[in-house]
């Protein structure tokens, strides 16, 4: 964690961490505006920006019409003209109408103007399943976007990382897609250092050291993976757990260093397996560290169906559990 200016801390959940960070950003820089559906009077559907409108006014906390393409597109124009917009997509499932503005416009602004215009923009989107959100409130979108040069993608799992990475995203001179896992919103609590600090994008975090297997994950599943690794520890098996935190850029050094030590790699993510983030990590490790491996790389990821059916058994079938993760870890350690 970089530049912690204060050693005191406060316990928060992820909603509170996003909220506190946005609040500071609004307080510290009047170029910052928040725009999205229901961010004002209601204070966002998860109450993340509750009462912001009272303090900062409707000019800075903009309740937009229901029109995602323009929510992102207007933010792009604001960014080009000197504001620091934070756009919100109410649920990541509704980001598709803005696909062109993110992929075709925001990500290419700097490049196509040869650096004359830039697009310092944060797009926040709650994502992920396990919340009985059915087929339109459960999706993970990172694989759809991590292919895109010009874009950065962050998906933190802990409140302290939420704050440090969101601060970094807000300071970043380029567009950042900031993904917040809905299930972690209130479930995950943790110490958050007081005061302003940032965590650089592209730095993974080794959450638990281990010697027999590297488990790489991000988002909600980091927490399940830690739980699974702890279970294995009880039977004497040692798993190293890495939280990627950033998906683009991605931390090669930390992954390779770990894999070279443990000689085995398990990649765990909720997003669909085929063409998912795990595919890129597998390819990178195969290219760079194949001869360090003692077992085939393994991926535990969402099945190849749309995320995710509403009825409880369907959702449970889609999601991986700590027990399944422990099983996969054990099999790979014992390979």
């Amino acid at each position: 964690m970089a530049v912690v200016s204060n050693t005191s801390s406060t316990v928060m959940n992820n909603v509170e961490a996003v909220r506190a960070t946005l609040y500071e950003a609004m307080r510290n820089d009047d170029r910052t505006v928040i725009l999205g559906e229901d961010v004002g009077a209601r204070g966002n559907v998860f109450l993340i920006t509750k009462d912001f409108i009272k303090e900062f006014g409707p000019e800075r906390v903009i309740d937009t019409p229901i029109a995602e393409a323009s929510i992102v597109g207007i933010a792009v124009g604001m960014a080009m003209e000197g504001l620091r917009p934070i756009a919100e997509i109410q649920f990541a499932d509704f980001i598709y109408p803005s696909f062109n503005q993110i992929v075709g416009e925001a990500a290419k602004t700097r490049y196509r103007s040869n650096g004359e215009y830039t697009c310092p923009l944060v797009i926040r989107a709650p994502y992920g399943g396990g919340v009985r959100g059915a087929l339109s409130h459960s999706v993970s979108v990172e694989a759809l976007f991590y292919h895109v040069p010009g874009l950065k993608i962050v998906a933190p799992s802990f409140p302290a990382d939420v704050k440090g990475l969101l601060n970094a995203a807000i300071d970043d001179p380029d567009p950042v897609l900031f993904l917040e896992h809905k299930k972690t919103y209130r479930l995950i609590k943790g110490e958050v250092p007081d005061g302003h600090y940032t965590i650089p994008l592209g730095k993974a975090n080794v959450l638990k050291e281990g010697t027999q297997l590297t488990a790489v994950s991000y988002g909600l599943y980091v927490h399940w993976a830690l739980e699974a690794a702890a279970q294995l520890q009880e039977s004497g098996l040692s798993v190293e757990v890495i939280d990627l935190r950033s998906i683009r850029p991605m931390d090669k050094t930390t992954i390779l260093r770990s894999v070279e030590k443990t000689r085995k790699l398990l990649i765990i993510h909720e997003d669909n397996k085929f063409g998912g983030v795990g595919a890129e990590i597998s390819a990178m490790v195969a290219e760079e560290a194949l001869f360090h491996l003692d077992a085939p790389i393994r991926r535990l990821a969402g099945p190849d169906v749309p995320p995710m059916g509403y009825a409880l058994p369907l959702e449970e079938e889609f999601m991986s559990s700590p027990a399944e993760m422990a099983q996969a870890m054990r099999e790979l350690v014992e390979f």
Partner: protein
Amino acid sequence: MRVVGLVAVQHRDPSASSFGRHGLSDQQLLAIFRTMLMHRTLENRGFQLNRQGKIPFASAGEGHEAVQAGAAMAFARGKDILVPYYRDLGLDLGIGLTPYEVLLSLFARAADHSAGRQFPHHYASRRLGVQTISSVIAAQLPHAVGAAYALHYRGERGRAVLTTFGDGATSEGEWHESVNFAAVHRLPIIFLCENNEWAISTPLAKQMGQPDVYKRAEGYGLPGVVVDGMDAIACYAAVKEALERARSGGGPTLVEAKCYRFLAHTTDDDDRTYRSREEVEARRKDDPVPRFERLLLDESILTEEGMEALKRSIREEVDEATDRAEVMAYAPAEDLYRDVYADGWQPWRGEE
């Protein structure tokens, strides 16, 4: 001008061409004409260079000269922001882009604004106040609205955004979302539609269920204005009035200029496959360039000799710009990797 509710209608009435200057000085009228001529000459040069195999692509706005030169005259340089589309060479020229910069763009040279990355005529210039655009239809409109929001938010009275698009662009969802948002927040922005009746091969009748873009304004709650897009002075007046309203806090306006696309969509298009020569010939009678030329001569703003001299100077300037730009270097191959992000561009981070 006829006012119908919120909608001010300017008819293409020949008798109205009894010359109203709308406050334009002789100097300004000449500047407008010069932009129109330069616009046409540069575009012919683009087509020529393409036929000679020197450049892969060119497009043209023949038929759009009047609306663009008129609108450019209403634009306040150093204050207003222009968010144009790919057919707006005349607008860009009118607000200060040089013929040399145009040729750098056609030749895709390193010294071009995008360093040869973009198609021709996709200029971005902080100096001129022109925002960067892509070729994606209507994608620039939310950016224009965002820029207008920035002006509005910072309380920068006296500034406004002029954004332009074709008739085809009005069918895009982003067009709707942009006009709606600007209306809700009464932003300082002008939506100028250059309705040339064609979107590549798609005629207006297949683009919308009724032919008047400005009639959409009422549904969004902003003023709608229609103007003869072949009449540079009328276009100037309509855009100026709208810009002034915007600059003084009066909110957005939708302006529709009725013009025509005389040439094929681009050098890659053959318009004989979808429209008749007779149609194009008939519309040539409206050609805004000779029309304005006639006006300047009739009103003795320019003599025949002065006209000849002007045309000659423009030809010379274009020739000179062509020669200068052609000898400039392409960007080096390493340039491909610059400016993806502010810092290095590697998706993988690590100590190598």
